[in-house]
């Protein structure tokens, strides 16, 4: 199954491959930030002093604070690096949950059909039509109280929005695949529904998931930043979050203090761009109508006499 999952990556070529690679590199950098944050970041994400010496407030970039400090006395470079961890955790959590719930539901719904299918489709369509940010706002609202402005609240908010997307794609692929001959054959030899779905259909439908996954991840980061801007995101004492830092830095820019807003903003742009490039690059290959028609050199076979018959042997 891993081979099927990685097929889109291996099929790329040319510029599409370069785009894919660029996106992967950018994403990898942030993943490294996220995983190795405690070792890479010069300070903790809510650290305001070192060696008994308090950090200055809103200090411009210097040798001690490479990206400067913000108005909460935090070191911006550390907040950016730790922020990568927050983004990655939230995004991974929400995409994973959405996939785990959405893909099986889509598979079952597409395969079983009937009233189950119709109800689920209705429900998912209703959710899908919903402006995703609004749903995220309402969820963050809801979850913020009991869970405190935490990572979990943001992740769950994003999960709810993305389940319909996976559901839809998987379901439509399943619906077209289930009439295929090989499925019919499998039924003929007595395979149970579960086996058909698991062994036969799953591999085929799973191909489009990485594309959606990366595009969703990109979207998730934007939504998280937007939640931070609206004051519904993660509190600074619990985690570093780029959207929150950005929203608190917006006023500063007009006062000539550019570093508090630039770095978190740039981080968001870069990571979202990276993920989108990966998704785009994959899309170029997964979507067959986009593949370039390649003209392969075709060599006509030479005319050679068939020696067998020339020897006068007779075919029976």
């Amino acid at each position, binding site marked *: 199954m891993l081979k099927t999952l990685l097929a889109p990556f291996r099929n790329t070529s040319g510029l599409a491959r370069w785009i894919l690679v660029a996106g992967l590199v950018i994403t990898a950098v942030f993943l490294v930030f996220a995983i190795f944050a405690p070792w890479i970041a010069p300070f903790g994400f809510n650290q305001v002093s070192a060696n008994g010496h308090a950090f200055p407030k809103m200090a411009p970039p210097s040798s001690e604070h490479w990206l400067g400090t913000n108005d909460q006395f935090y070191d911006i470079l550390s907040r950016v690096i730790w922020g990568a961890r927050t983004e990655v955790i939230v995004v991974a959590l929400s995409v994973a949950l959405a996939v785990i719930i959405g893909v099986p539901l889509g598979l079952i719904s597409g395969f079983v059909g009937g009233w189950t299918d119709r109800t689920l489709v209705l429900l998912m369509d209703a959710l899908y*039509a919903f402006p995703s940010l609004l749903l995220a*706002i309402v969820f963050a609202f809801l979850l913020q109280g009991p869970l405190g402005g935490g990572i979990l609240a943001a992740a769950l908010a994003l999960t709810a929005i993305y389940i319909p997307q996976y559901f839809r794609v998987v379901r439509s692929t399943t619906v077209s695949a289930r009439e295929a001959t090989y499925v019919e054959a499998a039924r003929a030899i007595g395979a149970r529904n579960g086996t058909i779905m698991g062994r036969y259909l799953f591999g085929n439908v799973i191909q489009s998931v990485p594309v959606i996954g990366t595009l969703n991840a990109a979207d998730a980061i934007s939504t998280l930043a937007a939640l931070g*801007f609206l004051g519904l995101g993660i509190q600074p004492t619990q985690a570093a979050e780029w959207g929150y830092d950005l929203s608190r830095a917006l006023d500063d820019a*007009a006062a000539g203090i550019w570093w508090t807003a630039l770095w978190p903003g740039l981080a968001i742009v870069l990571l979202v761009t990276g993920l989108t490039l990966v998704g*785009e690059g994959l899309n170029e290959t997964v979507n067959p109508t986009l593949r370039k028609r390649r003209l392969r050199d075709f060599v006509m076979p030479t005319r050679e006499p068939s020696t067998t018959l020339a020897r006068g042997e007779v075919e029976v």
Partner: protein
Amino acid sequence: MSAGSGSLPRYIGQRVLLVIPMILILVTVVFLLLRVAPGDPVTAAVGGKLDPQAIALRRHQLGLDQPLYVQYFEYLKNVVTFNFGHTISDNRPIIDVIRDNGGATLTLTLGAFIFALAIGIPLGLIAGRMRDTAPDVVIRIFGVVTYAAPIFWTGLLLVILVAPTGWPTYDIASPETKFLVHPITHVLLLDCILQGNIPATLDVLQHHLLPCLTLGLLLCGVFIRLVRVNLLQSLQGDYVEAARARGIPEKFVIRRHAFRNALVPVITIIGLQVALTMAGAVLTEKTFNWPGIGNQLVKYLDARDYNAVQGLVTFFAVVVIIVSVLVDIVNAMIDPRVRY
């Protein structure tokens, strides 16, 4: 139109009928989420001033201490009679909120679409035509970056750029314009034109520039990508090969056949972006203090005003659903394969 099948009216009928259960589901989801969320408009407003008994009295007055299902059926009853009720925090009929502020969101989104299409379509076509060359890469990266940048960041950058020139950076019109122009259609731009007030019209258009450009930049990334993909797909089409085989010069092939086919799905594209546009509008309105529905939504969210948030979110959802149904119908008229 479609002579024999009769399936188009049936398709339309089905889509329209489905709208009702969809809206019902959304209304219920929003209601549940808001009611289950902690807090209510009373504690939001006076929690820091009044003692618990006074707070309880006020909640009782507003019916907020009734059991959930009672409140739900009250609400459903009202929705069916199109009575969305009043906001709790400032006693405005919610219909009024939609009526007074809907126009601003409408002109904002239309203006943004104009920018997005004017920038996105040509760029998308160029990128598709010159696939895998430098312009293609630059344009695609531009599209991705404008989509990736947080809209409030872009908005702020534009404001900082423009502020020194004295260009208005917030709101839909100057206070005098708003004072002098009578609300007839409740769409300020239209009202200015209808009353023949040229300076006011120019004032309103001037105020539209920055917010529409900001939201438009966000959307044009999507258009660039989609137009490019559509163009590539049509360029792969057999009819293009056939045209080439017949010896038609390349540029006619592109212009007459491929471009046109690439643009046909644009209506669909626009329709699908409504949800994204609504979300973008909320953030843009907050950034520019634009008096649209998105801004009101944010304000009522802060005040934990259930009625208002329910009503406005439902309105957003209904708009999105209606637009997507319209888009599906148009799609079905153009592409017969869609009607099931």
